């Protein structure tokens, strides 16, 4: 039995020793002095007890039961006190570590916490405050702190503070002077009251939110750009839809007016007031057609034929016209880069952009000034693109049009690309110039930006994607004169008036025309007709079967049949984003008799040259 007891005691001593050694090794550097003393005493005490147990077990001593029990009882009590003392110290360690972690977390989050004793106006800050406000910056009173607040934000903070003293906690953003510059802070404040509801102290947190404010501002700009873009897109769709029907009507008006004028002229009524009236109708219709074209350009629905262009040549080609457009008191400077990349765009459209921007700039300087047109290569980087949703990274050609005019107020700047928005007097502007320029630039895959300062001037920057390769010459050449023809033409046009008009225009020029109100009927006529047709003229947008579908079926029926599409709005049936598909012959509505005959003649001639001999 004694042996069993001795073994148990030996194991007990071994366990204590393991715990003791572990403690001494792990915590040797940070034990308090009193704990070290207790541990040292405990080691000595345990060794004596071990010696007694060992001597009794080995039979070296005889009657040691009394001492053994005394030590056996005393030893655990010593251990209990030791661990109590150790635990006490460990709690202190945990608290210190928590405080260090809190300070670290606040430093990382760029924030600090504070506590204000309302009785003596003493501020107590967390250690992270110096990271936030700068080394040595630790305001001791609330009054000291308020001197750091931006003067414009101080009244707002004071009002919120008064509310907090009445029991309304607040969260507020304001600017604080730190290292001679203002940074944005977010403060949360709560006032604690005594049992008698008398405010005793306040506590709060202060966080640097400068970066998130910048990000939020950038986000707001992007959101506004997106809203503007969506608004323009919606208006564009509406404009495109209206333009389709409107162009049909205009074609009929223009065509019939021409017929009337021609008939009256043949009757020798050249001085007739009816002819003057008809001329006025024609001019009005042409103005309406120009307006519709602008609407289509704005809505990026205009059919274009882009090519590699040198922007310097486009500007140079317009120089004479621009000089006539602007008043003499405006100095026009053209700064062209010695080397400029080419751009892939429609020449007519680019001219339109330059003209619109120049006219706009000239109108901004009624008292004269300086107007500068500059072209150069630029590289748009990711930072710029991040701030402008519709811009793309990469090399671009910049067209910059600057004026020294009155500038554009900030509230107007957001709307300048809206169609029909104008600050000009009634009748002086349609409000489509900048909207059209915007649409054209977007259709060309570019980006347009405006910078303006009141009384200093405005700069429009048009960025067009740069293209590798050399610019081609402007292919716009004079149309061949209309001639009388003898070809047989199949015409498909769903608009009754237009169908009648085109038939008349072609037959009076000597052509044989078979007209159909739809694609299906055109096919029936083709099947019933013995001889092949020389040309198919078809409207693009027709119910049930559109022009492309009709042309595909017709060319399957009669391979090699030339097709001339006519439309005021193609809805991408024969084009991709307004860019005409390769090999497609197209005539834009509204058109005059001469334009129609010239185009028919051109297509027939081209086909005759291409046909195998």
């Amino acid at each position: 039995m004694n042996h069993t007891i001795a073994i148990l005691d030996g194991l007990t001593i071994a366990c204590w020793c393991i715990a003791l050694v572990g403690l001494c090794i792990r915590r040797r550097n940070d034990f308090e002095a009193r704990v070290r003393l207790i541990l040292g005493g405990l080691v000595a005490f345990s060794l004596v007890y071990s010696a007694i147990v060992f001597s009794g077990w080995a039979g070296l001593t005889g009657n040691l039961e009394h001492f053994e029990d005394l030590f056996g009882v005393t030893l655990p009590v010593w251990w209990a006190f030791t661990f109590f003392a150790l635990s006490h110290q460990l709690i202190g360690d945990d608290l210190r570590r928590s405080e260090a972690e809190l300070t670290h977390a606040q430093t990382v989050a760029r924030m600090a916490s504070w506590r204000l004793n309302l009785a003596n106006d003493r501020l107590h800050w967390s250690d992270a405050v110096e990271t936030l406000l700068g080394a040595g910056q630790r305001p001791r009173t609330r009054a000291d702190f308020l001197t750091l607040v931006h003067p414009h934000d101080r009244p707002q903070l004071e009002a919120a503070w008064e509310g907090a003293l009445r029991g309304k906690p607040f969260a507020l953003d304001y600017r604080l002077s730190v290292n001679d510059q203002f940074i944005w802070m977010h403060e949360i404040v709560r006032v604690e009251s005594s049992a008698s509801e008398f405010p005793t102290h306040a506590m709060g947190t202060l966080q640097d939110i400068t970066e998130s404010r910048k990000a939020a501002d950038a986000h707001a700009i992007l959101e506004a750009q997106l809203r503007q873009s969506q608004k323009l897109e919606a208006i564009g769709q509406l404009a495109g839809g209206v333009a389709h029907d409107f162009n049909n009507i205009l074609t009929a008006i223009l065509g019939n007016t021409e017929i009337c004028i021609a008939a009256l002229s043949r009757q020798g009524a050249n001085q007739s007031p009816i002819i003057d009236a008809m001329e006025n109708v024609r001019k009005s219709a042409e103005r309406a057609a120009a307006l519709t074209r602008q609407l289509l350009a704005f809505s990026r629905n205009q059919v274009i034929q882009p090519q590699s262009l040198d922007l310097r040549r486009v500007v140079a080609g317009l120089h004479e016209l621009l000089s006539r457009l602007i008043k003499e008191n405006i100095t026009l400077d053209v700064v062209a880069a010695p080397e400029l990349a080419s751009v892939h765009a429609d020449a007519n459209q680019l001219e339109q952009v330059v003209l619109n921007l120049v006219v706009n700039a000239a109108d901004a300087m009624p008292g004269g000034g300086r107007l500068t047109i500059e072209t150069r290569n630029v590289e748009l980087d990711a930072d710029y693109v991040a701030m402008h949703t519709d811009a793309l990274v990469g090399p671009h050609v910049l067209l910059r049009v600057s004026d020294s005019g009155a500038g554009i107020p900030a509230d107007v700047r957001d709307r300048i690309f809206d169609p029909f928005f104008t600050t000009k007097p009634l009748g002086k502007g349609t409000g489509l110039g900048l909207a059209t320029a915007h649409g054209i630039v977007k259709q060309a895959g570019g980006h347009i930006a405006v910078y303006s300062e009141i009384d200093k001037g405005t700069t429009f920057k048009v960025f067009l994607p740069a293209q590798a390769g050399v610019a081609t010459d402007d292919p716009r050449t004079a149309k061949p004169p209309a001639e009388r023809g003898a070809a047989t033409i199949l015409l498909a046009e769903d608009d009754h008036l237009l169908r009648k008009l085109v038939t008349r225009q072609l037959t009076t020029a000597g052509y044989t025309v078979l007209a159909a109100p739809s694609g299906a009927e055109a096919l029936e006529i083709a099947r019933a007709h013995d001889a092949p047709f020389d040309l198919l003229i078809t409207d693009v947008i027709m119910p049930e079967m559109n022009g492309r579908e009709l042309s595909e079926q017709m060319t399957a029926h009669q391979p090699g049949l030339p097709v001339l599409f006519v439309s005021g709005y193609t809805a991408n049936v024969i084009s991709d984003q307004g860019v005409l598909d390769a090999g497609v012959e197209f005539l834009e509505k509204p058109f005059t008799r001469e334009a129609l005959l010239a185009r028919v003649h051109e297509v027939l001639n081209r086909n005759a040259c291409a046909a195998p001999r």
Partner: protein
Amino acid sequence: MIPHDEFIMMGVGFVAVGIALAHRRHLARIRHVRLLTTGFGVLLLAWIATGAEHLVLPDLLNLVEHVGYLLGAVLVASWCWLRYRSAEEPS
């Protein structure tokens, strides 16, 4: 008859229990505190057994006393091990 020194030590043990109870909220913040309190409880049981062995079942209660010392030592050593291991982990 219980020797007076064993009475005194038992009394000291109960005083320690009283102090621990008075600081129980404080002690509750110690990690793995159950091991520590159970270890101390077992030691207290051993002291009671060593006093009681003079009245009844001397051999059995003497064995209980020494087994109690061993269990208490094992539990406190385990607490020591776990406490310092978790102290090294990031909290």
